[in-house]
């Protein structure tokens, strides 16, 4: 039985690494994103490496009206979906330019809600499947340095949590992934502390392991759970004065 994984936001480095992990397990892939040229090359690379079929599909997370049509166009419905569409954006710019703020919020939250609603409805009717949503530790608590991004991820986390409740009784598993620092295109310009920064391959291994063992929420790498526990515990009076 040919099983497919749908990867939304396939240009993301984390998405590519996840696609490889599932390809190793024999999943065929729908790689969905906007940069079709590059995604096709990624697909060819993965399909040659792991002897599976990888189809590149055009998908724009911000084009809400296209989402149902896009999903309907997949001839074989996927067994699992990874939502890795995301946009870091520029915090300072988002404070004065609402278009930037909206782009951050819509890419990370609204667009994901739009497509995941479509997926969820299909999975609910079939009573099978798994959904992996890539959120972020930034959603655990708003930080002065990236709260537009953080708040959009917080919204996504809450959405995935509720979706998990709705779908749990329908045999559909929803996994929320909260990565900390990861060395990717998205964080290219940033100076991240080496010890705390994960490689996309490490994150992908954590994710597939968690999905197979039906975990609900994971932090990757694991120590971010501890770091965020501490950060969340700081009283607001003190927190608001920190330069995070």
């Amino acid at each position: 039985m040919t099983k497919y994984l749908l990867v939304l936001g396939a240009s993301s480095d984390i998405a590519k690494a996840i696609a490889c992990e599932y390809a190793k397990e024999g999943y065929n892939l729908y790689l969905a994103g906007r940069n079709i040229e590059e995604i096709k090359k990624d697909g060819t690379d993965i399909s040659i490496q792991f002897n599976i079929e990888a189809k590149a599909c055009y998908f724009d997370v911000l084009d809400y009206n296209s989402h149902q049509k896009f999903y309907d166009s997949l001839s074989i419905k996927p067994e699992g979906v990874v939502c890795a569409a995301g946009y870091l954006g520029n915090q300072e710019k988002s404070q004065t330019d609402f278009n930037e703020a909206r782009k951050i919020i819509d890419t990370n939250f609204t667009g994901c809600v739009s497509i995941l609603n479509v997926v969820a409805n299909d999975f609910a009717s079939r009573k099978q499947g798994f959904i992996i949503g890539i959120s972020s530790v930034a959603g655990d608590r708003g930080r002065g340095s990236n709260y537009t991004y953080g708040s959009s991820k917080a919204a996504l986390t809450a959405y995935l949590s509720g979706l998990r409740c709705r779908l749990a009784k329908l045999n559909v598993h929803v996994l929320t992934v909260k990565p900390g620092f990861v060395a990717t295109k998205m964080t290219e310009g940033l100076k991240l502390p080496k010890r705390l920064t994960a490689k996309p391959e490490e994150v992908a291994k954590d994710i597939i392991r968690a999905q197979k063992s039906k975990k609900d929420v994971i932090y990757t790498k694991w120590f971010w759970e501890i770091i965020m526990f501490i950060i969340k515990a700081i009283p607001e009076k003190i927190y608001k004065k920190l330069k995070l």
Partner: protein
Amino acid sequence: MKLTNWGKYPLVEVNFKDFYSLDTLNSFIKENKNIIARGLGRCYGDSALAENVASTLNFNRILSFDSKTREVECEAGTSLKKLLDVFVPRGYFMPVVPGTKFITIGGAIASDIHGKNHHIEGSFSNHLKSFLILLADGSKVECSRENNSDLFWATCGGMGLTGIILQAKFKLKSIETAYIKQETIKCKNLSEAMSMFEKSSNYTYSVAWIDCLASGSSLGRSILMLGEYAKKEDMSLDLNLLKIPEKRKISIPFDFPDFALNSFSIRLFNFFYYHSFPQNIKKNIVDYDSFFFPLDRIHDWNKVYGKRGFTQYQFVLPKSSSKEGLEKILSRISQSNQGSFLAVLKLFGKQEGLISFPKEGYTLALDFPISNKLFPLLDELDKMVIHYGGRVYLTKDVRLNKEAFSQGYPNLEKFKAIKYKYDKLNKFKSLQSERISI
């Protein structure tokens, strides 16, 4: 950041940049000079060090494979390891492999790598169909023997000085199994080793480990290892012949103290290693990973040289002067008490190229821990190598000077002319190329 290559010497401050897209790489080249591309950093010295180092590792995709022609096309940052992992189980092997699989295809072209089969199959450029290179002016040029052939030949073995290789197409070999039939022959001294090399020149793979600290009548005593692809009928075990067992990797966790590897400990190691081989010829079957990449199993084996680091001195001498030349050079090294447990002799066949290293004759590669006494010794060896009509390999080098380099490479001016044609502003430059004035 501070960067070094496999020899851990020198360690220099560079502007190191990772790239995720061709556009950012293009802009980087437009805005900067003194740039060199770097893959996995397995050159030994400063060939991949410059003010600006462009890492190609994110360009690592396999772009296509045609099973009829056995041609594979991939991005230049793709490693040999990835290619072998993908293609060996399908019955294909790389036509040329060096001593480690942790190199990129870009590096394979820039160093025009050779392996244990050069005397029969030549270097990597022999099997290279074409490649796409990014030039200093931002243009992308397709090169092959027919198309922009001057740039093709200048880039093969051109140490990254003509531009940044983006992707390449080359041919794989068909194999029946992932195993090699190995024959191990003990040779009392250099004469015996060289005559055995000649006798075994029909073997696809041949290499000799030499005890470079032995002297007198044992000068150049060695273990010659010959290899041939194992066919299905050679295999006694009934298993998946294209799959090899996973091996546990050992890691060297920290730099050994500098005194750990000294002339005494090395002499001791060499003595025991040589005598651990039985007197008669030993035949066995080994998996390709153990035959071609025995040291890859030990992660970071370069740490055994300690913080001082090490370099490799590799040279080639024409056949006519090899016997005398190798004897004199080995004597000098044995006398100096500097040397290591890794000294390797191979036979080269004929080779085309501009500043590509291999030429017909014998090539000897020796590891040396870095010390103050080392550089004067290597300068002496340079003179001897040039005297005997040979030359030194840039990919292993860290201290060669301009004269010793130019005297060994008669096509240097041709290379410089082509480099100037495609890189007028000399944007692509490494610490090494500056030292030898290319």
